[in-house]
């Protein structure tokens, strides 16, 4: 099957190259048949890539270790769910996922626009197939997922233990869907610039795809944050790691784009800005893939040794220079149809919000790349961590939240004093009430940025609540529907607008959670014996008893903790640390269990107001002599077994493995029967749950905005508009 897979990759590459040629030839010669053929090449590519991906998935599910990628990332003991999702845990599989998703989304947009944007579509098809050719070449020639070995191992290495987490399994397809969906408005923007069809038509046909890209990227980022919080054993959800930043940058840029296109659609303004934003978003999406692929994050020198680095740099160079050249070339066609009437208008707020988002993107870009820039200039890498981000990102985030509350309240074109009073009175009052209450609570005033975020968040939630209530009231006045029905009808009839408002409210909830959990976190690093306790933020956490488990896959040491407050039991938590054996054959038979991957199971009590987060780090000192002794005993026994005739040696080695499992079991037993002190990280964080709730609200709002308007409702709206226009003309 590997041969078929490899043949499909080559076939896909051929189809992509043909499609580029057919689309461009058709566009230049005006031959619709060639254009149609180019579009069908995309459908064919989707079919070919689907088959290739099915073959790879089948290899993982069958545990076919003749595939190098399966042997390296799966094993017979890997649960079926993780076997199925391990395909994208490898470099090769994830690149194939990129091409496959790109082919699917490209097919969808080209099918939906087969009778629209006829001039733009062939160029967009060529650009999309250009991406497919690039990533297809990488999978076919540099990172082939169908590479095989003549002597397959009897067992695979297994999936990285840290990745055995449900949210991490969905994280890559979400991010890659976001990246590949961003390629679609990017391609149509290129097509619009080439053909000078720079009205809002290309935006209208790709807007939903940009929104879907934003939604998928956002979900992917949040799933990654959730994984970091519950799996990585450090108690945080965001570390400003370059891999995280790689996904955040295109998301921020795309957020700016989906706001500013409204100004182009309504007022014919910001054409240069919109084209630049989507071209930047598309480029940042490829940059995101480049950042985690090329090794450049480790060092410029690592980049030089990478096989994928140079092709990516060439692609990015082409994208950046091509985008800049096209915008300069078409600058005359990109002039705005109208001007900004007032700085107190919705379009001005959108513009400021865009500047803030682009500013955030630039800050993240600069600080992420700064170690490399300093290394290139001075020869020495400079380490910059979260402290370099915070002075810029925190104030910019505050301004962003403020603007996300102002945007829904302020009118288009120009605002009047009466409009300001009517719209802002309640939300501003709500923000001020929050300020007074928080100042009275005490403690919060010492953290001015957190205080500001709480007040601004309240302002945003109040402004969205007010807009929703006004809409419901107006609807009830017309239809006399009960409130729930009027609310649902209101959202159903203007999904884009109210979906957006719900997203704003979700963002406020999320950022309140971020501000609270980062400013008021209590963290203790303590060493406890069974029966001992520590107090963290008023919670008495007692180490009740040790627990342990030993299998051929791993040995884990853990603890049962009792959490109490004010003498009342709150929760019983269990935390463990699993030790997976290293693959290094030079390590001792027993010792290798403690020199491989380690993985924490967090003991977590998630609450609406506070999270209690615990993790154990066992001290191995007391069993170290036993481990060393075991290694020596097994080394001698293995050497003796190797000197025996083959059949006896195999039997002896089988016995030795059984003895090893017993020895590992004895170590686990020792931890339980004769427990010794262990190190614990105990964290109490307020409002972490708000982050996940805010994310769910954002996702719901995004889905509402994305959901297609029913055909009947669209027809009704169109006919009502036509009737009104006819009346006005008459």
């Amino acid at each position, binding site marked *: 099957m590997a041969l078929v897979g490899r043949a499909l990759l080559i076939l896909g590459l051929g189809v992509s190259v043909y499609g580029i040629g057919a689309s461009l030839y058709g566009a230049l010669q005006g031959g619709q048949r060639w254009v149609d053929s180019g579009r069908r090449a995309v459908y064919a590519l989707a079919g070919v890539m689907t088959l290739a991906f099915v073959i790879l998935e089948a290899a993982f599910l069958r545990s076919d270790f003749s595939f190098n990628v399966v042997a*390296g990332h799966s094993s017979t003991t890997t649960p079926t769910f993780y076997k199925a999702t391990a395909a*994208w845990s*490898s*470099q090769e599989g994830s690149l194939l996922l990129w091409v496959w998703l790109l082919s699917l989304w490209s097919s969808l947009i080209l099918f939906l626009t087969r009778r629209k944007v006829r001039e733009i579509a062939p160029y967009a098809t060529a650009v999309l197939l250009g991406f497919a050719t690039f990533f297809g070449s990488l999978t076919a020639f540099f*990172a082939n997922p169908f590479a095989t070995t003549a002597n397959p191992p009897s067992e695979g*290495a297994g999936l*990285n233990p*840290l*990745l055995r987490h449900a949210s991490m399994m969905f*994280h*890559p397809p979400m991010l890659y869907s976001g990246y590949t969906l961003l390629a679609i408005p990017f391609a149509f923007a290129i097509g619009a610039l080439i053909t000078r069809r720079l009205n809002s038509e290309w935006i209208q046909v790709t807007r939903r795809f940009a929104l879907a890209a934003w939604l998928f990227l956002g979900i992917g980022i949040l799933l990654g944050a959730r994984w970091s919080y519950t*799996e*990585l*054993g*450090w108690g945080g959800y965001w*570390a400003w*790691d370059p*891999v995280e930043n790689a996904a955040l940058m295109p998301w921020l840029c795309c957020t700016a784009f989906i706001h500013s296109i409204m100004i182009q659609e309504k007022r014919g303004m910001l054409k240069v800005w919109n084209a630049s934003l989507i071209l930047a978003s598309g480029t940042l999406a490829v940059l995101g893939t480049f950042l*985690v*692929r090329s090794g450049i*994050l*480790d*060092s410029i*020198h*690592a980049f030089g*040794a*990478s*096989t*994928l680095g140079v092709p990516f740099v060439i692609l990015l160079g082409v994208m950046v220079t091509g985008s800049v050249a096209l915008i300069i070339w078409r600058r005359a066609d990109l002039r705005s149809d109208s001007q900004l009437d007032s700085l107190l208008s919705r379009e001005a707020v959108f513009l400021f919000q865009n500047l803030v988002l682009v*500013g955030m993107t*630039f*800050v993240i870009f*600069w600080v992420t790349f*700064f170690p490399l820039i*300093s290394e290139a200039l001075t020869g*020495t*890498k*400079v*380490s*910059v*961590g979260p*402290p*370099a981000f915070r*002075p*810029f990102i925190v104030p910019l985030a505050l301004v962003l939240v403020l603007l996300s509350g102002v945007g829904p309240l302020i009118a288009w074109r120009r605002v009047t004093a009466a409009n300001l009073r009517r719209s802002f009175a309640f939300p501003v009052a709500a923000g001020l009430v929050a300020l007074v209450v928080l100042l009275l609570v005490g403690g919060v005033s010492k953290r001015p940025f957190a205080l500001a975020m709480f007040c601004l968040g309240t302002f945003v939630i109040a402004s969205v609540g007010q807009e929703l209530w006004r809409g419901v009231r107006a609807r009830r006045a017309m239809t006399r529907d009960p409130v729930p029905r009027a609310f649902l009808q209101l959202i159903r009839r203007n999904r884009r607008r109210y979906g957006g408002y719900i997203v704003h409210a979700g963002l406020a909830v999320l950022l309140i959670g971020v501000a609270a959990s980062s400013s008021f976190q209590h963290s203790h*690093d303590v060493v406890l014996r069974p029966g001992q306790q520590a107090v963290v933020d008023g919670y008495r956490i007692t180490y009740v008893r040790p627990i342990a488990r030993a299998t051929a896959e791993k040995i884990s040491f853990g603890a049962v903790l009792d959490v109490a407050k004010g003498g009342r039991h709150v929760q019983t938590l269990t935390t463990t640390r699993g030790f997976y054996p*290293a693959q*290094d054959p030079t390590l001792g038979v027993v010792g290798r269990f403690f*020199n*491989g*991957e*380690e993985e*924490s199971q967090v003991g977590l009590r998630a609450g609406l107001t506070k999270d209690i987060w615990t993790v154990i*780090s066992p*001290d*191995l*000192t*007391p069993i*170290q002599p036993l481990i060393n002794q075991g290694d020596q005993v097994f080394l001698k026994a293995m050497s003796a077994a190797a000197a025996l005739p083959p059949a006896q040696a195999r039997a002896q080695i089988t016995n030795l493995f059984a003895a090893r499992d017993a020895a590992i079991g004895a170590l686990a037993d020792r931890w339980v029967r004769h427990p010794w002190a262990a*190190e614990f990280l105990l964290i109490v964080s307020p409002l972490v749950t708000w982050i996940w709730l805010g994310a769910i609200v954002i996702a719901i709002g995004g889905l509402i905005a994305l959901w297609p308007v029913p055909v009947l409702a669209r027809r009704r709206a169109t006919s009502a508009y036509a009737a009104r226009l006819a009346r006005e003309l008459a």
Partner: protein
Amino acid sequence: MDPSRKRAIRLTVALTAALLLASALVYTSFSAGRDELTASQLLHQAVPGKSYILAGTVISQQRDGSALLFRVRDPKLHVSVPVRYTGIIPDPFAVGRGVLVTVQKQGSDTQFVGEQDSLTTKCPSKYQAAAGSKY
């Protein structure tokens, strides 16, 4: 006011703000940053008692009771240094991963001692190639 003059003023204000932001960013990057040394730089520059940030790839690790012994390799040269570290070990720590750790040289000892809880590991992205592969 003349619309073109208005536009010019807005552009000047925007550009000034952007320039100020960029200048502050460059200044903060340099002032908040600390030099990361590779294994070979550390071997040449380290003096006892002074702390340095060591960056590189873990090429071997061994538990020694509560301590972790590991070697960090220079990505450019095939030079590595041994580090003895105690404290919380990040879950993503493993052979083949990139790490940052604050270390000190103690006396004439060739082994560097890692400061407690200073070890950070780069995100174990699923997209990275397996350790030792050519990617």
